């Protein structure tokens, strides 16, 4: 999310699962789809079977995906930017790029501010004390008309193309081999295969997941791949795209609905603490076009925002009170999970609600998490399962060696139903909202999550009403129009987020006609207004429930064009568009680049096609509107301006725990690891050093289990019953370890004991002249469930996150191992 939005305008999988079948080359990197997404992986198999697609897998381990790949290349964990930067260098050096595409649809020609610079690992504006950048120099050169200056000849040394070329010229195949340990010939084979799709006739799809997000430079890894895809002309194209495979079935829905701490629904953003002026808040977000004739769709921000506030506060949100702007929290800083747990650890948090979340198992540095939870006054756990978090205070011997007498936290466990025990929609990776129906009642005292939250809310509201309290306004004024106050129906909530008219709406084309009656569902976000006459709980979902009914419940898989877009199967945001930025599948004149892969096209008066055009339907190609309609530039960005924390171009930085303790790309001690990543006090000290912990460790999921849930199921427990760790044959021989031995794995934060699986699938790599072994650590075990009791794998992992998204660095850290 934090990487695709700064590049393309929206932070989600650009294409969708079924569309993968249209690819000619499938790159799986930063993920292991066969292992973690076996059902979606069928579309890779379809591409192979019916499209003769080549599957390329780049991973530290020879994975289940690699087992069915045509080409596999090993890579040291945490070095993907070096690899992909090398691919960019290869494509630019060999001129294997889709010229017309990049010139028309990216910022290639844009001129960058003269103050911007990059030197020895750092970009201009670095402040070492604050570990952050003054990003003011990371901008465009603007003309007197307010538009970005460009150089269509691409000769100006300050144009994005020239700056990028210079930046990545350092990423030679030799440098890639030195950093990543990928043998040069294998790296070049991957480059050649990707480069084969730099033509309009062929496409590469990139499939990635937590293998990219879970690094201190995770967002930038994804951005580097997005840049490769732009150079190849593969964004907006069927069989192309940057396809983020989400780690939970509804995690896309979670971010869409604004459950990240700095977001509101639909990727609207919470104001910062200095943003107390409503108008300034809106104007900052309603970006005006930066090039002539661009749509810059965020100009409509206020319509989305006001409609959201009407959905939340109803009649209490008025023009006079700036639509209840003062009732929104104002952020002093990002309050992500790592921040909250650090605050908790410092004793600054009294109570914590933990809904469908098992942080003791799922977040890094279990010792710190356990100590943090022990400092709470109360902990509420809402979950279908008896999670480790809910029993963090209980002694489970070596697996959770705590003294309950010393922990005073009161724990409330509220049993909830699971997804199969309620109606609702899940948003899949491909942005489809698919409705599902309750299959059974929750067992025992279990209640649906909505009912639990509604019960908590109505009781709290009653207490505020009866007893008063500090700042009761947002709670007392929250609209609660549900038929059963204690148990709102999923259908009511779905209608609310899709949006409705609050008064009779006049037709914008003919003011004498009413085109929406008061109370009627809207057809989509184009009908939202900023005068308080519409309400919509999530503008991005607007159109999911229209006067025609619940479109998410549709199950018509008709595919008239044979390209898998199935527009009548469920409903996809935005506006049922299946492939985002699909305007880019045509050349500037509106003709499909590839006549065999027609998606949308200009028919002389309108945009039409097999997909819903992700574009202004009546915009004549002659007017030059760009396909990336959310960006004020209208084009995609190689140069991310100030939108990334650690720099406008992705640069390789070592994991915070690096086995080589240096960054071969620079000689600057400040720039070994991400110079702008947040590190909490005390956590820098517990990063391990290679002399004590020589092996590069990475954690991951197995097909047999889903996170920490399915170890509670007998069948899954039968399929993978006991905690294990994977090591290569070389390392096993060095350490005298045989398959089946118990081994101790230690990091600077703790240790686990597990069975050794000795495999050919992990091989030592030569990195910076040094042999580096990997240790593979599956995550699924714990002290609760049907599987054999095990250690929490996150006992080992470091408490540091991606500098932009704060996703913890689960994928790269250091350990030592020994036979028990």
């Amino acid at each position, binding site marked *: 999310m934090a990487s695709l939005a700064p590049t393309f305008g929206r932070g989600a999988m650009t294409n969708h699962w079924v569309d993968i079948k249209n690819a000619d080359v499938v790159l799986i990197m930063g993920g292991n789809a*066969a*292992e973690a997404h*076996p*059902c979606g*992986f*069928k579309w890779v*198999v*379809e591409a*192979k*079977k019916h499209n*003769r697609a080549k599957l390329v897998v780049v991973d530290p381990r*020879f994975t*289940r*995906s*690699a*087992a*069915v790949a*045509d080409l*596999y290349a090993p890579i040291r964990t945490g070095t993907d930017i070096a690899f992909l930067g090398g691919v960019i260098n290869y494509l630019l050096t060999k001129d294997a790029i889709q010229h017309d595409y990049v010139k028309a649809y990216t910022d290639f020609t844009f001129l960058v501010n003269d103050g911007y610079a990059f030197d020895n690992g750092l970009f201009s504006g670095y402040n070492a004390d604050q570990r952050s950048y003054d990003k003011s120099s990371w901008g465009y050169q603007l003309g007197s008309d307010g538009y970005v200056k460009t150089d269509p000849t691409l000769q100006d040394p300050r144009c994005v193309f020239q700056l990028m070329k210079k930046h990545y010229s350092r990423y030679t195949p030799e440098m890639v081999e030195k950093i990543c340990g990928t043998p040069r010939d294998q790296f070049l084979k991957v480059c050649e295969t990707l480069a084969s799709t730099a033509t309009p006739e062929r496409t590469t799809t990139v499939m990635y997941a937590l293998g990219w997000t879970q690094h201190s430079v995770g967002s930038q890894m994804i951005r580097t791949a997005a840049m490769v895809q732009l150079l190849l002309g593969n964004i907006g194209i069927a069989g192309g795209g940057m396809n983020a495979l989400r780690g939970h079935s509804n995690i896309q829905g979670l971010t869409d609905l604004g459950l990240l701490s700095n977001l509101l629904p639909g990727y609207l953003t919470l104001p910062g603490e200095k943003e107390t002026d409503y108008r300034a808040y809106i104007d900052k977000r309603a970006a005006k076009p930066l090039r002539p004739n661009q749509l810059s769709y965020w100009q409509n921000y206020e319509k989305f925002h006001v409609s959201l506030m009407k959905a939340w506060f109803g009649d209490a949100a008025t023009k006079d009170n700036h639509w209840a702007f003062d009732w929104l929290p104002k952020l002093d800083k990002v309050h992500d999970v790592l921040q909250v747990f650090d605050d908790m650890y410092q004793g600054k948090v009294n109570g914590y609600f933990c809904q469908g979340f098992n942080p003791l198992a799922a977040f890094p540095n279990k010792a710190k998490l356990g100590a943090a939870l022990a400092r709470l006054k109360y902990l509420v756990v809402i979950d279908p399962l008896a999670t480790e978090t809910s029993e963090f205070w209980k002694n489970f011997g070596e697996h959770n060696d705590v003294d309950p007498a010393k922990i005073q936290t009161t724990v409330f466990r509220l049993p909830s139903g699971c997804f199969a025990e309620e109606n609702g929609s899940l948003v899949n990776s491909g942005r489809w909202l698919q409705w599902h129906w309750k299959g059974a009642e929750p067992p025992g005292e279990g209640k649906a999550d909505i009912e639990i939250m509604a019960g908590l809310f109505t009781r709290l509201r009653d207490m505020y009403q009866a007893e008063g309290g500090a700042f009761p306004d947002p709670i007392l004024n929250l609209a609660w129009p549900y038929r059963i106050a204690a148990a709102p129906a999923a259908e009511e909530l779905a209608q609310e987020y899709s949006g409705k008219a609050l008064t009779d709406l006049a037709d914008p084309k003919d003011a004498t006609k009413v085109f929406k009656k008061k109370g009627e569902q809207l057809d989509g976000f184009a009908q939202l207004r900023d005068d308080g006459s519409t309400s919509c709980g999530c503008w991005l979902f607007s159109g999911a429930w229209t006067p025609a009914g619940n479109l998410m419940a549709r199950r018509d898989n008709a595919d008239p064009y044979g390209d898998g877009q199935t527009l009548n199967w469920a409903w996809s945001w935005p506006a049922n568009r299946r492939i985002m930025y699909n305007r880019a599948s045509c050349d500037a004149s509106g003709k499909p680049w590839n006549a065999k892969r027609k998606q949308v096209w200009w028919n002389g008066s309108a945009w039409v096609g097999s997909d819903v055009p992700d574009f202004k339907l009546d915009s004549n190609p002659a007017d030059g509107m760009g396909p990336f309609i959310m960006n004020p530039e209208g084009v995609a960005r190689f140069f991310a301006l100030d939108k990334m924390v650690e720099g406008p171009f992705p640069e390789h930085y070592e994991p915070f725990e690096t086995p080589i303790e240096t960054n071969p790309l620079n000689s600057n001690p400040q720039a070994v690891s991400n110079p702008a990543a947040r590190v909490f006090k005390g956590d820098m000290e517990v990063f391990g050093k290679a002399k004590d912990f020589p092996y590069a460790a990475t954690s991951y999921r197995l*097909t*047999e289990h889903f996170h920490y849930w399915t170890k509670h199921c*007998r*069948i*899954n*427990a*039968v*399929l*993978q*019953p*006991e*905690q*294990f760790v994977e090591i290569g044959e070389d390392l096993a021989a060095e350490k005298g370890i*045989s*398959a*089946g*031995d118990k081994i101790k794995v230690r990091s600077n934060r703790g240790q686990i004991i597990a*069975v*050794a*699986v*000795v*495999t*050919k*699938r992990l091989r030592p790599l030569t990195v910076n002249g040094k042999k580096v072994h990997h240790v593979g650590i599956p995550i699924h075990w714990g002290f609760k469930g*049907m*599987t*054999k009791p095990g250690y929490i794998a996150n006992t080992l992992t470091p408490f540091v996150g991606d500098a932009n998204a704060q996703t913890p660095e689960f994928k790269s850290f250091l350990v030592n191992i020994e036979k028990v």
Partner: protein
Amino acid sequence: MALQSLDIASRSATTTPSPSMRETAEVAKLIDVSTCIGCKACQAACMEWNDLRDEVGRNSGVLDNPRDLSAASWTVMRYAEVEEGGKLEWLIRKDGCMHCADPGCLKACPAPGAIVKYANGIVDFQEENCIGCGYCITGCPFNIPRISQKDGKAYKCTLCSDRVAVGMEPACIKACPTGALQFGSKEQMKDYAAERIADLQQRGFQNAGLYDPPGVGGTHVMYVLHHADRPQLYRELPANPTISPLVALWKGVAKPVAAAALGLVALGSLFHYVVKGPNEVSKEMEKEVEE
């Protein structure tokens, strides 16, 4: 033609002739090893449908789990790491009953009706008739049947004969996420396999081919293999399976006993339990005795 007719084509230790009025197409499960990701969904589906719950075991240093077939695990994935021409390959094979056209288990079985072969090719164990002698294990060239510790009877994959009987595919086929498992008439499966083999050959697997071993008359579970010339790479899949000579041997030794036993058929299973020996006749034996 329907695939689900459950006329019995042959029955262990039985003399009555089989019905032959209807013609039934032969079925087959095709396991395309080249698109299998070893996810074990087939194992889970098998346990679910057949109401089997094996013990929660231990990890013995490999990904395989359960470690072997058992009376409660009728299919398991077997993972092999092999190096071919300096290139690592991870060959993952779903193991289970092959449903031979010429089933060694049925041939060896002394208990009337404990093993049947349906006209559609499915070889099924009828545990209520099983005497637990274990001869099916000796008879099987693929080492598939397992005797239950709990009830002393032999179990193995039924190819979901109950599902196939009502026109459904076996549970493992339904659960397979990648389409590596396919089910249909044997003819259709051979056609489909030919497409897959052509694809594999175009990708450089010159020896890709179909595993349908003639030594057991062909099988109703077939594999598409990248290396059909060396099935043993796939965790000892036999290159040329045949029915154990022991099956013929015991028949030879037992011939006189069998002749005497002909009159004791009525005592049936009780007798088997007492002597735990080869005191029953197969059709072939009977023929031999009569000759």
